[in-house]
């Protein structure tokens, strides 16, 4: 546990000292501030505009950051050979891997909390009431980030940072379109397209299941069972990806 904590905190420290993280964090805060300007042109739907812009920017920035951080997590260590000094210690490769992912998630958690704090502060400033669906949207966003980070993590265990980032970005968009892929393919008359569509749907992470921002925009209540089911889905998918990353990383030769 001590080793796990050391690795996770080291990952967090790396991100904290990485200027890109700071710049992106500040950029996110600035964009959240832009919501203030948007409200000038709206008549009375402050709640909806603030929620749309605030959660949208928060999601976009954190997703980009998750992709950037996770895709370089292992590949950078392998390319720079920093990994040689760590995996030769009495530390299993799987612990190293999970520790690094935990450090990544710790960074994203801190940023998510900070941005959520700014978001709710802004709501407070405009005397707009909060809704539980906003909290749900922010909470489930964390699981979306976990899933994306795990995917970037798998990719970076065997490919370069660029390839990992491109593929993970592609998976992000495809994951949000998973339902559409299924719907379009099932309308096709070709059995092959139907099968391909179904296989793709089941293989891709269905990220729309982890998107509660539309409900938050309209302050719709969300059933707790549905939220728990989405969280379980995201966690299970991420766990499967981490397991795959461990298998790949354990088999890997560091030339």
């Amino acid at each position, binding site marked *: 546990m001590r080793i796990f904590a050391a690795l996770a905190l080291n990952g967090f420290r790396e991100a904290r000292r990485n200027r890109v993280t700071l710049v992106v964090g500040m950029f996110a805060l600035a964009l959240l501030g832009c919501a203030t300007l948007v409200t000038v042109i709206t008549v009375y739907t402050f709640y909806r505009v603030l929620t749309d812009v605030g959660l949208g920017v928060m999601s976009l920035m954190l997703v980009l950051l998750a992709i950037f951080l996770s895709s370089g997590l292992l590949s950078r260590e392998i390319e*720079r050979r920093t990994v*040689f000094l760590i*995996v*030769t210690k009495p530390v299993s490769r799987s612990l190293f891997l999970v520790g690094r992912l935990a450090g990544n998630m710790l960074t994203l958690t801190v940023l998510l909390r900070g941005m959520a704090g700014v978001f709710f502060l802004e709501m407070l400033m405009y005397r707009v009431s909060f809704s539980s669906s906003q909290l749900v949207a922010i909470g489930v966003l964390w699981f979306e980030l976990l899933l994306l980070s795990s995917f970037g993590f798998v990719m970076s265990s065997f490919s370069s940072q660029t390839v990992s980032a491109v593929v993970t970005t592609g998976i992000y968009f495809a994951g949000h379109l998973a339902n559409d892929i299924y719907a379009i393919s099932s309308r096709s008359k070709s059995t092959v397209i139907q099968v391909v569509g179904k296989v793709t749907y089941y293989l891709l992470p269905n990220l729309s299941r982890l998107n509660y921002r539309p409900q938050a925009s309209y302050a719709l209540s969300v059933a707790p069972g549905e939220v728990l089911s989405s969280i379980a889905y995201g966690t299970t998918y991420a766990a499967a990806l981490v397991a795959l990353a461990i298998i790949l990383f354990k088999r890997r*030769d560091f030339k």
Partner: protein
Amino acid sequence: MTSTAPPIEVRGLSKTYRLGFWMSRKVQALKSLDLTVNAGEVCGLLGPNGAGKSTTLKVLMGLVKASSGEARLFGMPPTFKETRRQIGFVPENPAPYEYLTGKEFLTLAGRLAGLSGMSLDQRVGEVLHLVAMERAAGLQIRRYSKGMIQRIALAQAIIHKPKLLILDEPTSGLDPVGRRQMRDLILAEREQGTTVLFCTHIIPDVETLCDRVAVLVAGKQVRQGSVKELLTSDAPLFETVLEGVPLSQVHAWGYQPKYSKEIGERLILRTSDQDAQSLARKVLGLSGRIIQLQPVRFSLEDLFLEALTEVKDTVGTEIT
């Protein structure tokens, strides 16, 4: 752990790398290597680039899996945590986390090696002092020179007081001062009874540091023994530099020198002691001149070059 087991025991170790997108190209980096390093010894793996030295160390550190054969450290497989607790490793061109300070990096290394609390803090201070890095301890590693990085890498390797140190090219790329410092640090570890295995292609380092040497060429071990044994294994040779007698005449007299070279009027020959004496008499009898006649000091460099010429395989031969 077997208490009597040698720190390093390698039997029939081979490694074939699969390269390319489809992993279809095979390159054999190691061919049936046998190596034993006994407790307290400093053993050097000597060889040109691509000889398989680093691959050997990587197999021992569990960074690379052997294709066949067996490597044991203290009688245990290299991947065991218990084994790793007794080993310190410095890779070639070490790259510690550059966003950390030297002290932070050593603290992390100590934690990963199982140290904690006061004993960790104390040990970090000790190793910083040992590698003379106290003044730069609070500086981020990205600001370190190559020599400083090498020293901090050695510090992380010895932080948990390992019984075995494995070093990959520890002095490569360092200036003379840096090399001297690294050599002194390795010698200090040796004096404390630590077993050291290191690889290099810098021959003076081997002569200075090693009790035993294994010469690798193209993945094969071509020589092994103590430095003294290797340097005295051949019969002593004499180098004769003469003038006024061509090489064809020397051959006509029936001499088969081990080495010969004509430079202008001069002829340089390496022969046995007996041949050197009789050759000198014949040269003088033919009104030739003996410029120089002296015993050859056989160096590791000669041994190394001789081993290279013996092995006809290309380094890193593709086998498919």
